[in-house]
């Protein structure tokens, strides 16, 4: 081995990047070449001095804070209370559970949640992320949610009634995982969101319109449902009735 070769390879030797065969060759060269041996000794010394520390920088706290603030918020436990509070049908109970957020809740939690479900519906259409599991088979979609949600959303096959099951998706409503079942009727997409309710009470269905979408929500046996679609109100209500009837019959 020449000095020119060793000059490059001895770095790989020092860095532990050399295979055994080449390592032996370089070491053999160093053993017989005072110049390369001196270089290797100095490089090791410099490496040691560098390892002594003081060369790394710490990100300033202000920078860290800015970056953390720019990331989407981590799951906030209070949001869960918000959803549950909605399920209880009263902002009061939610305020009782999280007194801290009384100001935010202040009775308009229902409207806020509705906005979120409409946003989730919009996202599912825009982001090309309508489904996580694509299947028209309820027996494929239902088990897919296992382990992804703390509830098992009922899945109904309504194709004979004009609503085709397209698949399922895991969505998040402000940090909380929510199951979404996707149905189609003609060109229209229906997102049916299913989340755990706080009690087994059954709440009356309610239809509202927001940003041009119809939102139909109801509660049934401990689960809260929000159906969001650009379908006409009567068709969406019809879908919800069919879904309820089918799951009730199945359950």
């Amino acid at each position: 081995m020449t000095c020119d070769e060793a000059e490059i390879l001895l770095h790989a030797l020092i860095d532990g990047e050399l295979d055994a065969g080449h390592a032996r060759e370089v070491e053999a060269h160093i053993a017989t070449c005072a110049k390369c041996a001196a270089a290797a000794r100095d490089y090791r010394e410099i490496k040691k001095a560098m390892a002594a520390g003081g060369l790394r920088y710490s990100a300033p706290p202000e920078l860290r804070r800015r970056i953390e603030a720019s990331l989407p918020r981590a799951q906030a436990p209070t949001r869960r209370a918000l959803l549950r509070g909605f399920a209880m049908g009263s902002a009061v109970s939610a305020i009782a559970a999280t007194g801290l957020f009384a100001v935010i809740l202040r009775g308009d939690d229902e409207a806020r949640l509705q906005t979120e479900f409409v946003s989730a519906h919009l996202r599912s259409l825009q982001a090309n992320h309508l489904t996580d599991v694509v299947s028209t088979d309820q027996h494929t979609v239902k088990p897919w949610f296992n382990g992804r949600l703390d509830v098992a959303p009922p899945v109904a096959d309504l194709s004979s009634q004009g609503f085709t099951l397209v698949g399922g998706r895991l969505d998040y409503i402000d940090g909380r995982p929510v199951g979404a079942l996707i149905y189609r009727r003609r060109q229209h997409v229906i997102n049916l969101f299913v989340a755990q309710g706080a009690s087994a009470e059954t709440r009356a269905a309610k239809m509202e319109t927001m940003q041009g979408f119809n939102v139909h929500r109801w509660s049934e046996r401990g689960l809260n449902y929000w159906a969001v679609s650009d379908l006409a109100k009567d068709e969406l209500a019809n879908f919800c009735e069919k879904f309820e009837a089918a799951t009730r019959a199945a359950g």
Partner: protein
Amino acid sequence: MPLKIVDNDPEKARRFRELALPHLDDVYTLARYLLRNAADADDAVQECYLRALKHFHTYQGPAIKPWLFAILRNVCNAEYARRANAPSTGADELPEDAEKAPLWHEAQETPEAQIVKRHEAGTIRRLIAGLADPFRETFVLREIENLSYREIADVAEVPVGTVMSRLARARAMLRSAWLAEQELKK
């Protein structure tokens, strides 16, 4: 209160936090050495994390550190381009007289070991700052960030052979400076 939906996948954001945030000091350290300016490093690191989150779906592993470094490097290159185009104000010049060559000619002011160590670290920092860009980058990735040759090659987008020759050059230059300093200590 408007709904803040920054990203439609909190699971992704959570993973990003867990994987990328612990390397903030690493990324910041590299930025400081690449840009040699604290304020620019701040901006570059923030931009790096924004881009990283945006492109997080392209991250395939295994190690996230080189992936973050590659992004930071792109951000820094953009900054270099900006500096090249901008009329020099002096503020963009090397800080801490990094370019005045023989900075290792500093006298020891106190025998206290701690001070000596800090002094040495300061000297090494300045020696590194004096290296030309490609050598400095390779050297810092290897010696301070502990990347393998392969990882450095990926970050710097050069063959491993180039990494090796750059590292040899960088160390040879540092060695000369180092020896000069040792000489002065005597």
